[in-house]
């Protein structure tokens, strides 16, 4: 009897997950895919017939330029998150359990504040009468306030600030799991600190690096509110273009087509990652 109850629960949970995925993930994506093949309509937004008009619009030079800029920004954001996040995580992973927990707390606590509000707070730092300019002016390092706000730089700062924890947490999860005796074994076999780091620690934490990069790169393409708040009208990320296509131009097919292209791009990246045999081997070892 216990067995049947157990089976019923398991079946129920499985069905729930399937239905959830169906309604929340599969159906919306299917609708977006469908929308990308339909035709623009002023009142109802979409109408038949099916066509490839929206995908042709992706070839538009102006749109392509913005997309490339956004990809570039996301790439640089990911790179900086990695360059800041990895050493930081490596540093805290070396501490005792209690200290590590404290550092993790310090990283997670700001998350309890809405990231929108945290980005508004950045205005107070970056604006012409903000903290940075006040500091530089006070010490006479500059004669006139720098224009920091409403620049690509500001968006970049906001992105790195917002997304850094997404780089740190997966890397931390992997670094923490590395057996200390493996690092000691490398030193025992004659590896100096630098060799230990790039022959042992980096390869063993590679799954965390990849996971962190994916978790930073994707949002960095689409976090439109960061570019809205800090970049003004000058900077557009892929996310704001999609938003504009839907909300301002009311061109749903093109908005949907960009979304589909973005999803396809990410799927290709993920596929390449899993295909690389070496990393799959590490995955198997570590997870």
């Amino acid at each position: 009897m216990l067995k049947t109850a157990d089976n019923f629960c398991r079946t129920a949970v499985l069905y729930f997950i399937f239905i959830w995925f169906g309604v929340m993930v599969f159906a919306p994506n299917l609708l977006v895919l469908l929308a990308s093949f339909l035709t623009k309509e002023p009142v109802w937004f979409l109408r038949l017939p099916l066509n490839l008009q929206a995908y042709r619009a992706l070839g538009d030079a102006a749109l392509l330029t913005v997309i490339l800029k956004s990809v570039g920004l996301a790439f640089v954001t990911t790179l900086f998150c990695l360059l800041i996040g990895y050493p930081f995580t490596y540093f805290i992973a070396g501490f005792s359990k209690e200290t590590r927990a404290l550092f993790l707390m310090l990283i997670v606590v700001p998350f309890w504040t809405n990231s929108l509000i945290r980005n508004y707070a950045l205005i107070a730092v970056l604006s012409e009468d903000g903290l940075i300019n006040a500091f530089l002016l006070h010490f006479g390092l500059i004669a006139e306030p720098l224009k920091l706000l409403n620049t690509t730089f500001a968006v970049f700062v906001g992105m790195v600030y917002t997304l850094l924890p997404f780089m740190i947490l997966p890397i931390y999860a992997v670094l923490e799991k590395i057996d200390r005796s493996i690092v000691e074994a490398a030193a025992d076999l004659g590896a100096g600190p630098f060799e230990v780091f790039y022959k042992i620690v980096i390869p063993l934490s590679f799954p965390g690096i990849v996971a962190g990069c994916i978790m930073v790169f994707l949002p960095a393409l689409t976090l439109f509110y960061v570019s809205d708040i800090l970049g003004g009208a000058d900077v557009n990320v892929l996310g704001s273009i999609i938003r504009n296509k839907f909300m301002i131009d009311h061109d749903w097919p093109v908005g949907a087509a960009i979304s589909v292209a973005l999803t396809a791009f990410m799927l290709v990246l993920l596929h390449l990652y899993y295909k690389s045999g070496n990393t799959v081997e590490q995955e198997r070892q570590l997870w």
Partner: protein
Amino acid sequence: METTPHPLLELKNVTKFFGSNKVLDDVDLTINDGEFLTLLGPSGCGKTTLLRLIAGFERPTSGKIIMNGKEISHLPPNRRFVNTVFQQYALFPHMTVFDNVAFGLQMKGLPDEEIEIEVFSALEKVKMHQFYLRYPSELSSGQQQRVAMARAFINNPKVLLLDEPLSALDYKLRQEMQIELKELQRDLGVTFVYVTHDQEEALSMSDRVAVLNEGMIEQVGTPIQIYEEPKNMFVAKFVGEINVFDGMIIKVEADTFDTIVEGMFYRLRKPSTFDVSRGGKIKVLLRPEDMVVSKVNDPEAEAPENALRGVISHLVYKGRTIDLWIQTAGGNMVMATQFFNEDDPEIIYQADDVVNVSWIKDWEVILPDA
């Protein structure tokens, strides 16, 4: 080791604190070139810390570690001629067996062709050459153990440190590996410092055993010395089973002394390690296999001289031997191991049998009653 031992590694007054916790207390130990030395002790006795100090993973709080006359206490692990086989092997999970074993030589910057020859020769020694393309996760724990051995000794260390390398293996494999390890050590001629809490392992493999307890070395000696001439109660009780009797000295002669044990009179040989004096208290220690047991047919008859009367409380049949627990008249529980004698039908013991217990003369160990 026929030749005079040449000291390779010397630990002098080594003390180690972790915070306010004293893990090693003024340890002095000399390890000779080519010997198999075992650090034996219960968990938490400091044996692994001692090993980690030699490896260079820890620094002594005070004291010196000297190798071939040069102090190495403050050298990092990668600059000592010492390699370690870790308890859980610590193989690099992202490297094949070949790359694991090659790691040390690559760090030395040897040419690839030379590394290849060396790696295969090392793998052949541990019979793992056909597995060179496998990853550690694809090996059994016994195989991982062999790879860990090869990865360590390929670097020709002056000392090979082994931290309970057999503890993860099942009983039968452990027995086989004990023999293989000992053979490998003879074959390589490398000094082994072996850490274990298993006294059987220590006795069967080592040239010398250092018994540790609470951060201090209790005794260093050959397995025979450790087992047959324990210097103190800790060593006596930790290594093997032992019966302990209390004795009171009543008379001292030139070579012997008279004592009362369990109400019986005994004339025993004077111990060489300490002076006995009249009225002094001693411990008389006896291994179960040194006990002599004989069945009593007439319980009314008096026990013969030098024998204690007792009743078999319970017994454990072990195939080749039988272990008897005998409750003596004096209230002690005595353990006696008897070998079977096919021709002697008398050897059938049962619980509640009345027996006389004595021991083979002069095989007792006398310790002062501290």
